[in-house]
C-alpha cells in the first residue's frame, strides 16, 4: 500500500540546514495498523507530513497504492489527499460552526458528491462511530472523545486508502483514549490501513506493528502482539 525508498528531507534554518530524515525505507501492506514512535525531533511528524502529501521529500521514492507521489501541483495534491488519505488530528480540527454531520460531509463536498447523497453517507459514518444522535450538534457541544470520533468519521467518509492519525489520543484522558483506540482497532479489523503517530507506549502497543524513529532513521521495526483496547473500556 505504502512504499518508501531512501527518503531524505532537510530543512533550511538560516545558513545551516537541518537533516531531519536520513534515508527512510519503509513498507506498509494493506490492512496494517502501524504505530510510528519516537521522541520529539525524531522526524516522525515530518514523515507523516510527507506521507500525507503535505510536504515534499528532497529525495527518495514514495509510492501510494501503486501511484508514484512526486512533484505534485497543489491541485493534484489536493485531489490525491482527498482520494487516498484520511487525516485524524490531535486537536480534532473540526470546523466549529458546522454541525457534526456537516463536518463529516466536508470531504465528500470536495469530491463533489451531491448534497443529499453526501448527508446520507455522512450520517452512515456518524452512525458507525456511534454518534448518530449527535448529528446536529456543533463541536462545542461535544466532549473530547466525541469530537475525535466525529473526526474519525470525517476521515473515513471519503473512503480513503490510508488513515493517517497524528497523536489521535494526545488531547484525551486515558479512558477516552482507549475508547478512540478501540474504534481505530475496529476500523482496522474491517481491513483499513492505518498509521498512528504516537509517543505513548500503551497506545503503540494497541497497534500491530511499531516503527521506532530516532534522529531521522528507523532504529526498530517490529510486529507485536496487539493489545485490544476493548478490555479497558
Amino acid at each position, binding site marked *: 500500500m505504502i512504499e518508501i525508498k531512501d527518503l531524505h528531507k532537510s530543512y533550511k534554518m538560516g545558513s545551516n540546514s537541518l537533516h531531519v530524515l536520513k534515508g527512510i525505507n519503509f513498507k506498509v501492506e494493506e490492512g496494517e495498523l502501524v504505530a510510528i514512535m519516537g521522541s520529539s525531533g525524531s522526524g516522525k511528524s515530518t514523515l507523516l507530513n510527507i506521507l500525507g502529501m*503535505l510536504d515534499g521529500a528532497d529525495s527518495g521514492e514514495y509510492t501510494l497504492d501503486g501511484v508514484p507521489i512526486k512533484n505534485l501541483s497543489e491541485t493534484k495534491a489536493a485531489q490525491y489527499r482527498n482520494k487516498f488519505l484520511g487525516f485524524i488530528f490531535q486537536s480534532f480540527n473540526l470546523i466549529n460552526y458546522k454541525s457534526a454531520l456537516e463536518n463529516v460531509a466536508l470531504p465528500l463536498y470536495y469530491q463533489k458528491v451531491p448534497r443529499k447523497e453526501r448527508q446520507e453517507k455522512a450520517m452512515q459514518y456518524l452512525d458507525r462511530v456511534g454518534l448518530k444522535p449527535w448529528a446536529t450538534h456543533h463541536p462545542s457541544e461535544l466532549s473530547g472523545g466525541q469530537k475525535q470520533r466525529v473526526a474519525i468519521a470525517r476521515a473515513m467518509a471519503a473512503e480513503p486508502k490510508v488513515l493517517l492519525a497524528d497523536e489521535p489520543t494526545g488531547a484525551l484522558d486515558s479512558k477516552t483514549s482507549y475508547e478512540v483506540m478501540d474504534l481505530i482497532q475496529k476500523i482496522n479489523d474491517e481491513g483499513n490501513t492505518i498509521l498512528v503517530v504516537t509517543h505513548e507506549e500503551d497506545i503503540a502497543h494497541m497497534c500491530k506493528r511499531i516503527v521506532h524513529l530516532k534522529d531521522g532513521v528507523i532504529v526498530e521495526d517490529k510486529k507485536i502482539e496487539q493489545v485490544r483496547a476493548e478490555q479497558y473500556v
Partner: protein
Amino acid sequence: MFDRDVWQEIFNTIKTNKLRTFLTGFSVGWAIFILVMLLASVNGMQNGFTNQFNDDATNSIFVRPGTTSKAYAGFEAGRRIQLKNDDIEYIKRSFPEDIEYISARYYANGTARYKSETGSYSIQAVLPEDQIIEKTLVMAGRYINEADQVNKAKVAVIGRKVAEDLFKKEDPVGNFVEINGLPFRVIGIFTDDGDDNAERRIHAPLSTYQRIYGNTNDINTIALTYNPTYDLAKALEFSGRLEDLMKRRHKIDPEDQAGLYVWNYAEAFENISSFTAVLKGIGIGVGFLILIAGIVGIGNIMVFTIKERTKEIGVRKALGARPRQIVNLVLLESVFITAISGFVGLLFAWIILAALGPMFQTPAFSNPSVSASTVITATIILIIAGVLAGLLPAMKAANVKPIVALSDK
C-alpha cells in the same frame, strides 16, 4: 457560486465579526454614498444651468454694440457703435436661410403709475417676434403684434410682478398705466420661467419708444434665433459670418473684440457642457479615491479573516480542498461584503436625493438626482472593487500550507 456551504461559511464569518464587518462595510458604503451624492450634485448644477438657459431660446444669438478699441478704415479708436433699425433689415436680407426669428430691443427705465400705486421698472421696447426669442409666456391678454408696431401704439405688456404691484386685485388688461407720464393701455400680462426679475419688466412696441425718445432709429440690441436644425458647428459658423458682416457694415476692425459683441448661446451652452463634464470627472475622481480607501479596508478585513482561519483553511486543504475553491470562497465573501455595503450606501443616497432633491430649485442648482446609468455603473464598480479587495487575501489563503493545520498543536 450558489452553493449552500459557501454561503454558510460567508455568513458565519460575517456573524462572528459583526462589528468589524460593519465598520469596513461602512467605509465602502460611505464611499459610494459620496460618489453618488457628488454625481447627483453635478447633475443638479447641470439641471440648474440648463433651466437658466431655457429662459431664452437655446438657438438664440444677441448682437450688442460696443466701443471700438482699434483704429480702422480711417476711424479712430474709441468710437461708439450704434445699431439702427436698418441693421435688422440688412441682417434679414443677408441671411434669409439662417434666421428663424429676429427682434430689436430698446432699453429704457420708467416710472409706472396706476391710481395711487407707482413703481420703477425697466422697459424693454421690442418687435413682436421677441416673444418667441425670449420664450415669454403670456398669461392674460396678448403680446405686441405687427399692428402695434406699425401704428406706434401706446400699448404695454406687463410682467406678472408689475401687475401685482400696481393693480393689486384688479384686472390690468384693458386698463391704462401711466409710464413716465404717458398713458399706455395694458394689453397683456406675461410670466417668465427664468427669474422674478424678468417679471418686473414692461414690454412695449419698439416703434412707440423710438418715437417717444426723439424719433430715433436707434436700437440697443438685436436678438435673433437661427435655424433650429443647425448643430453646434453650423451655429458657430453662422454667428461668425454674422459677426464678420456686422463688423464690415459698421467699419470695425475684424480683430477688434470691443466694437461689437455677438453672443451665441450655443457657445455658452457648449462651455457649460464641458464645464459640467469636468465637474463630473472630478466628482467621479474624488469618489473613486474615497472608494479606494474602502477597498483597502475590505482587503484588510479579509487578511485578518484569513489569518484567523489559517488553521481551518489548512484542514480544508488536508481534506482535499483545491486552491481554486479557497480563492473563490474568499473572493465571494469580499464581493458580498462590498456589494451589500455599497448598495446600502447607494440606497441611502437615493433616499436622501428622492426626499430632498426636489426642494432644491435655485437658479444654479436644481433637482439633483441619480440616473439608472449611475446606479449600474456603481454596481459594476462595486463588484470590481470587491474582487480587487479580495484578490490578495485570496491568494494568500490559497497559499496556506496544510502543514500548519497539522503541526499546530
